Structures are given as structure tokens and as C-alpha cells.
């Protein structure tokens, strides 16, 4: 996948049928279950090798300025391939990640699911919005909302994540970090 492909996801394809929608929703929901319960090795098993996982920074741009807000040359919040995701998981697994102990409690609510056919028979464009709530220690908390534009690839009976564009809504993140995947 490329980031340009993700930027082109504009909900213009043909809606999938009820059965496909149901199957995709099962995988999308279960992915969140794995993330929220820190079952990250199993989560990573369901990532395609050509994965692009991208959360661009957001900026306040005047409407009259024709330069797009999100471009591939700007710095990102996440811009991962499968290898760099595995590198990040190594930090979590090191047993020396002091700030993650005790662990973060997290719940991600997703909704507004829409799924479309693409020009590839085995790839589906899937849109969701999410609310990510995190709580740590006694009273440290953060709520982030965003929009995801995904490519899910059908491999056998499974749907696997091949691309994700995460559009957080804050131009200044009102939180100290992004210590979980979205």
C-alpha cells in the first residue's frame, strides 16, 4: 500500500452487500478487542506484510490557501510498516517499559462503519469513526476522537488489515502521548 492510496479513499465505491458487511464488521470489531486487551501479537498476526499505518499531524490552514492540509511530505504521528510495528511491540515486551506498568486501561468505541468495493476484488474500503478513552494510574485520562479510512484485504475466509489512515481531530494533541494503536 502507499499513503497516496489512503488519501484517495473517499467513500465513492459501491456499497458491499449485507453478508460482506457483516463479515467485515466482525473483523473490525475483533481487532479493537485485541488492541484494547493488549493481545498485540495476535493483532499483529492479522496485519498484511505491505501494511501502511498512518496518522498524519493536523494543522489549521486557511480555506483560501490551496495547499492541502495533509500531504505525504509532512511529519506524522504514526507512519508505520509491519517492521516498525514489530519494533514498537518489542518495546512493550521488553519488561523494562516502566511507564506502562501498571498498564493503561483503554476502550475504543467504533461506529459509522461503511464498507465499499474497490477496483480490486479482494480489497475493501472501510470507514469508521472512533472514540479512544484511556485511563492511567489514579486519575490520568485522555479522550481522543478520530476517523479511520482502512483497506481490508480478504485472504481465504479472513479479512486482514492492509492500510489505515487515522485522522485525529486535534491540531495540538491535548495529551502527552499516543501509547496505544488506534
Amino acid at each position, binding site marked *: 500500500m502507499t499513503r497516496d492510496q489512503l488519501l484517495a479513499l473517499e467513500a465513492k465505491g459501491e456499497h458491499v452487500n449485507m453478508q460482506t458487511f457483516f463479515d467485515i464488521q466482525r473483523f473490525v470489531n475483533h481487532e479493537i478487542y485485541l488492541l484494547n486487551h493488549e493481545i498485540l501479537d495476535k493483532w499483529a498476526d492479522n496485519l498484511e506484510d505491505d501494511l501502511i499505518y498512518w496518522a498524519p499531524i493536523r494543522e489549521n490552514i486557511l480555506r483560501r490557501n490551496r495547499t492541502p492540509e495533509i500531504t505525504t511530505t509532512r511529519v506524522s504521528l504514526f507512519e508505520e510498516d509491519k517492521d516498525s510495528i514489530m519494533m*514498537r511491540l518489542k518495546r512493550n515486551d521488553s519488561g523494562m517499559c516502566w511507564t506502562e506498568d501498571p498498564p493503561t486501561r483503554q476502550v475504543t468505541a467504533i461506529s459509522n462503519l461503511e464498507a465499499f468495493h474497490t477496483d480490486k476484488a479482494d480489497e475493501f474500503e472501510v470507514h469508521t469513526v472512533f472514540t479512544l478513552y484511556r485511563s492511567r494510574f489514579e486519575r490520568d485520562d485522555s479522550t481522543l476522537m478520530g476517523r479511520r479510512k482502512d483497506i481490508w484485504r480478504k485472504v481465504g475466509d479472513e479479512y486482514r488489515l492492509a492500510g489505515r489512515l487515522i485522522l485525529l481531530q486535534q491540531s*495540538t494533541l491535548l495529551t*502527552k502521548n499516543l501509547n496505544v494503536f488506534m
Partner: protein
Amino acid sequence: MSMNIRSMVDHENGLIDRRIFWDEAIYQQELKQIFARCWHFVAHESQVKSFGDFITTYIGEDAVIVARAKDKSINVMLNACPHRGNKVCFAGEGKIRSFVCNYHGWAFGLDGKLNGMPANELYDKTEGFNKEDWGLHRARVETYKGLVFATFDEEAPSLGEYLGDFRWYLDAILDVDDKGTEFLPGTTRSLLKCNWKYPADNFVGDIYHALWTHLGAAEATLKDAGGIVVSNENSYQASVNGHGWEFSLANNFGNAATMGDKDIIKYLRSREQEITKRLGVARGKMLGSVASGLIFPNFAFLPGYLTFRTFLPKGPTETELHSWTLVPSEASDEIKDKWRLGAMRTFSPSGILEMDDGENWEHATLGNSGYVTRNQKLCYAMNPTKGEAVPIDLPGTVTKGQLNDANQRLFFKRYTEFMEAGSWADIPLAESKF
């Protein structure tokens, strides 16, 4: 109320009263005594390359606009309409011909001059009203090798005097070739619930924390290279006018290696000989080494990762972190892109190293809500090389061994000088040797 900062900061013995990280009255004094006086980094020239380019940022809590005018000058002015006080620009960056206030439509040029307003005949008939008196309030502006600084204090010395011999060190990043440097596009902003001085004193001279705080992250990228290597062999802390750089001359690609990208190491290796020829042996080893630095009071950077960042104060217990990635302009697009990714994966809100730091600074700050807690002293006493001679000739106040609280003690010495000074005349400047 004037606080007696000198009684709270014993920089010689390294005893720092925790109230300076918490107290609202002290914080208000900092805005006046430090932020309204110092030279502050506001932009890299590459962010405002041509006529009409602008960015918005802050000096202390004062919102400012940085804009390039038609005569190529860079202007820094308050982002506040002098008429009723509203902000005149709500974008973070862009291209524009004039800033028009949303409230009554007063329009200002890229140099801050009041150009006009709706129904201007109302003012034409107003006795004593001169448009020249009502422009955006301007700061003094000077640049150093691509970095744009501004101050609102008319009495401040020149930027050159303010930086002093710290310029010699800065050249190890800013002047490694004839083409200079640039920021990659985009500003990353996040909020830390900590006092601004915790990240500032961390960058000015605390490599000690890396041996523990960052063990988990180091495991992810440096395991095969033997983990984090920091020692007091052939490493130093240098301080000039409160600015500081702690660095190794032994582990000269150590910071860069943490990004886990072989191509960046290869690039740095390929440049070493030429940089050494240009800047000498010591500075030939400083572009990627295990190091961190700070320009007083709150502009920090890391060699290797080439992240540059400001810790903008938002009250005594909140700090906004703005960060950018700087690259040598002569590097190929591929290498610049590697730095874009490497800096993001280590030092950004999702970065495996930055995530370790924020948690520490927040809880160091928030614990001060306890009366007994905040009346304790913190320990900045580490001084393992006391009396040992520095074997090479380096500018500034130099201490042998990067594992040392020397720069942090000198940061708080400088902090006290500013907090107690009646004006710039009371603030000493180190003499230049180089």
C-alpha cells in the same frame, strides 16, 4: 509579590526547592523576568521561505506571528489586534498578503503595519488618530544560521552576545556544509501536564535518565548493538549563558543509532571526514553522538535524531511541546525521509523514547500539590568529576563527563540571575573566546 528565588535555588550544591515547579506567583514572575526578556526561537527560515509565508507560535504565553515581507525581512509581532485585542491569525501556517482581524476588520501588513479598516473615514475625522501608532506590536528579530529568534526586550543584547560561544557548538549541527539546514514540513504539538523547567533541565544536561528511563525503548532498537552506551570517558558537559550541551565524543553515532536506521548512520559516516575538516575533530563527532542540548530558556534539540523543540509554558503545571525535524539541506530526499520517520518513531507523541519522558515529568510536577512534598529540596548534586581537568580546549564552562548535573546547576544559576534581575543590565554575559 517578589519571591526570593535565591533562597530556593542553591545552584552550587545542587539543591532546588520544588516550589519553583509549582507556584503560580513564581510562574507569573517567569513570564515577566525570563520570557519577556530572552531571545526565543520562533521559526526556521525554511518555514517562511518567500514573500507572504507565515507561521504562528508563542513567546512565553504571548501569541506571535512570524511572517516574511516583500522586502525579504522576517517580522515577528504579537498576534493580537491593538484595537480590541482579538487574535488576527488563527492558522498555524500558510501564505497571506495581510492579516485581517475578524472583529472589526482592521488589516495589517506582513510587517505588522496597520494598512486600513472598514469605514476608515470615521478615523480620518478622529482628531489625533494616526494609523502609524496602531500596528501589531513588533519584536526584535535576528537569525543565527537558519534559526530565527525574537525578543520583546529593547534592552536585550544582540542575539550573538546572547548565544555567546554556544554558537561554536551550534555550528556542529547548523554549519556542517555550505548548504545549511531546513525544517521538514509540519509542526507536531502536544500537551504535557508538567512544569516547563522539567523538560528544559532534562535536555540541558540529563543523560543520566537514559540509563534507566529508556531501557525498554533501547531494547527495541539497540539490543543487537549492546544497548545504551553512556560513560564519562571522552564525554563532556558545556554551558554558556545558561545554554547547555552534554555530549559524547566517543560514541559519535549513538543517538542516531537509536532510530534503528542503517542508512542514516551510513550518511553520517560519509560526512564525518568533511565535517572534521571544516570544524575540527571534536565537532566532527557531534552531529549524531549521544547528546542533548538546550538554548535558554526552553528551546531544545537532540543531535542524531535532529529533533528541535520548544517547551511553551501554559501555566505552572502545563507545557505545550512543539517539535520539528531539522535536516541538512544537502542530504538526498531519501535520507531526509529516513530522518522524518526516525525522529517520529523516537521523539514524537508516539515515539518510543518521548513516551517514556512525559510520564516522568508530569508526575514530578503533580506531586507538588502536596504542601509537605513541595517544601522538599530536589537533588541536583551529581558531580563525579569534580576537580578533574578537561583534556581538550572547548569554549564555555566545560565539565568532564556527560553523566553529571553540572549543566543543570548552571541552568538554574542562570534562571536565578534572570528572576532576580531588575533589567538586562543586571544579567551577566560570558565573554567570547572563539
